[in-house]
């Protein structure tokens, strides 16, 4: 099999202060093939956003630090690059879109300037030509009146339009990898449907691989080829999307699926996971889900389970499966 586009090996991103060490990402392995859509799913604080910021080397300083592991992208370890080399990768080979486009766009620059800037910086395209390409790109992502929009500013656009602008900006250099961190969470359902539809179109028409970070299993079912479920800084399950929804193995994954109300079925009582996620500053020594797990045994509290292959291509961090 061909080498994956991205291979994260035993990545550890910690926040270190005098009082505590918060293990936001605690030894994760994720692989993304060319053109593949990998969804990382988990609840607040599971480390999914910190994983994406680690790939971009944008972990908040000074407390946040990548303390170990490798991020192999297209044959190079991103963690070994100089800041300058990394700046050449960002926006050009790996691009990122965020949940709230308003905070990610510069409010005092026109849309056209912001999109074309990427081409000028990374590809050395002359400004005029870059602006034409920006207009083309806006049309591709379905922005109406693109010729006028390039002269407008972010506050003049709706949330859905801003997210399209973000996607246009991310895709203009045709990156090999797009990281989308909760790209539709702030949008209304009908607008979310438009943006997800656009992301599917992009995937059909370009060879860009996508890492989609979300807490919404509905979005996962809609978009993913492969799914990585994270809990408390670790990968607890990793498998192709069809298997995840037909045969979820980890008790956490199963509990998550059971606790969502359905649009079609009646459930009298929703399954609810008791308790809360353990603090990342003070993880238990055994399985991190044991305290909330319906099938935990005494041994689960003693020893941390390894991520094992329970069926071909199906990794689960649970000794009872």
């Amino acid at each position, binding site marked *: 099999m061909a080498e994956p586009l991205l291979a994260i090996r035993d990545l550890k991103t910690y926040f270190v202060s005098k009082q505590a060490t918060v293990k936001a990402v605690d030894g994760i392995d994720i692989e993304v093939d060319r053109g593949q859509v990998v969804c990382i799913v988990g609840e607040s604080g599971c480390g999914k956003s910190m994983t994406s910021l680690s790939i971009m080397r944008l972990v908040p300083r000074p407390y946040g630090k990548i303390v170990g592991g490798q991020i192999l992208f297209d044959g190079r370890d991103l963690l070994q690059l100089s800041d300058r080399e990394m700046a050449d990768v960002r926006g050009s080979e790996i691009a990122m879109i965020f949940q709230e486009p308003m905070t990610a766009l510069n409010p005092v620059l026109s849309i056209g300037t912001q999109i074309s800037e990427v081409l000028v910086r990374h590809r050395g395209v002359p400004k005029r030509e870059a602006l034409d390409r920006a207009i083309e790109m806006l049309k591709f992502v379905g922005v109406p009146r693109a010729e006028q929009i390039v002269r407008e500013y972010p506050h003049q656009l709706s949330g859905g339009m801003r997210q399209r602008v973000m996607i246009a900006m991310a895709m203009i250099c045709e990156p090999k990898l797009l990281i989308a961190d909760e790209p539709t969470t702030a949008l209304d359902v009908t607008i979310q*449907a438009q943006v997800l*539809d656009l992301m599917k179109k992009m995937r059909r028409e370009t060879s860009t691989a996508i890492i989609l970070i979300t807490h919404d299993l509905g979005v996962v*079912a809609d978009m993913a080829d492969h799914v990585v479920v994270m809990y408390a800084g670790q990968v607890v399950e990793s498998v192709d999307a069809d298997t995840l*929804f037909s045969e979820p193995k980890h008790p956490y994954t199963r509990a998550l699926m059971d606790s969502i109300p359905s649009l079609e079925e009646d*459930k009298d009582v929703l399954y*609810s*996971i008791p308790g809360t996620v353990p603090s990342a500053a003070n993880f238990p020594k055994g399985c991190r889900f044991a305290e909330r797990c319906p099938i935990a045994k005494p041994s689960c509290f003693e020893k941390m389970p390894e991520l094992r292959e329970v069926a071909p291509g199906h990794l689960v961090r649970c000794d009872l499966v």
Partner: protein
Amino acid sequence: MSEYVLEVQDLKKYFPIKSGLLKRTVGHVRAVDGVSFQVKPGETLGIVGESGCGKSTTGRMIMRLTTPTSGKIILDGKDITHAKGEELRASRRKSQMVFQDPYASLNPRMSVGESIAEPLIVNKVLSKSEAFERAGELLKTVGLRPSDINRYPHEFSGGQRQRIGIARALALNPKLIVADEAVSALDVSIQSQILNLLMDLKHQFNLSYLFISHNLAVVRHISDRVGVMYLGHLVEIGPKHSLYQDPLHPYTQALLSAAPEPRRTKRRERIILQGDVPSPANPPSGCPFHTRCPRVMDVCRETMPKPVQVHPDHWVACHLHG
């Protein structure tokens, strides 16, 4: 006893747009534009819709946190549309609100006990010491420890804070609870805990809920009947099974088809609406949905459709029906 806990008739809220040096009114944002519905005792009415459809403004008018421009709000048989002073306070003993962000709605400098006891003391229902005792009981009812009354909101997680918000809403034994996006800020595992709690409390205290949310699956789970709002109008309302299985309004159909289901098999055909919701400051003529409707007809651009009953208790305002 009246037939309905809550009855809302042709409720409207227009916010003036002021401009210029003299702050003259140059137009109105029609946040809610003629909404009518009823809630029976022990019933949960869900209201769904996207941002700006007026669902929260409707909830706030029912709580009288915003004064309606016109229309009528009848709470437990009493017209409270223009209630003031003692009369308004009395109405708040019958209806209480649970907000989306429990951190923003709890005073950070008041202990949890003080927050829960406050409505009891303000309304002179109980003495101070009795009120604190009751606060402890209420904490137990919502699944926290009575000993938590001396702790402060920042010491609790999001889910626990929402439990505190619910305990405070329950303090006065209300008949109606207006829950505005009460579980939207919570992670799914915590969301299901709070939904189960709300349903338990409903049976325990024979409460009625007006449950406002953008999450269609959550609304389906908790509600008996569901109303769909679009641009200040209630476009469809009906019993949940009828509405979710046979949505009549093209907007409801698009909304339901757009919501991603966590399943890989048996996908519904997704209806993707074009464009954005029009501005409520300049709403379209005729049917508010005609600018995005895949089945728009000439009549839709001219006249506003009237609600018609298509199935038992299932109403829709659309020219395709009736």
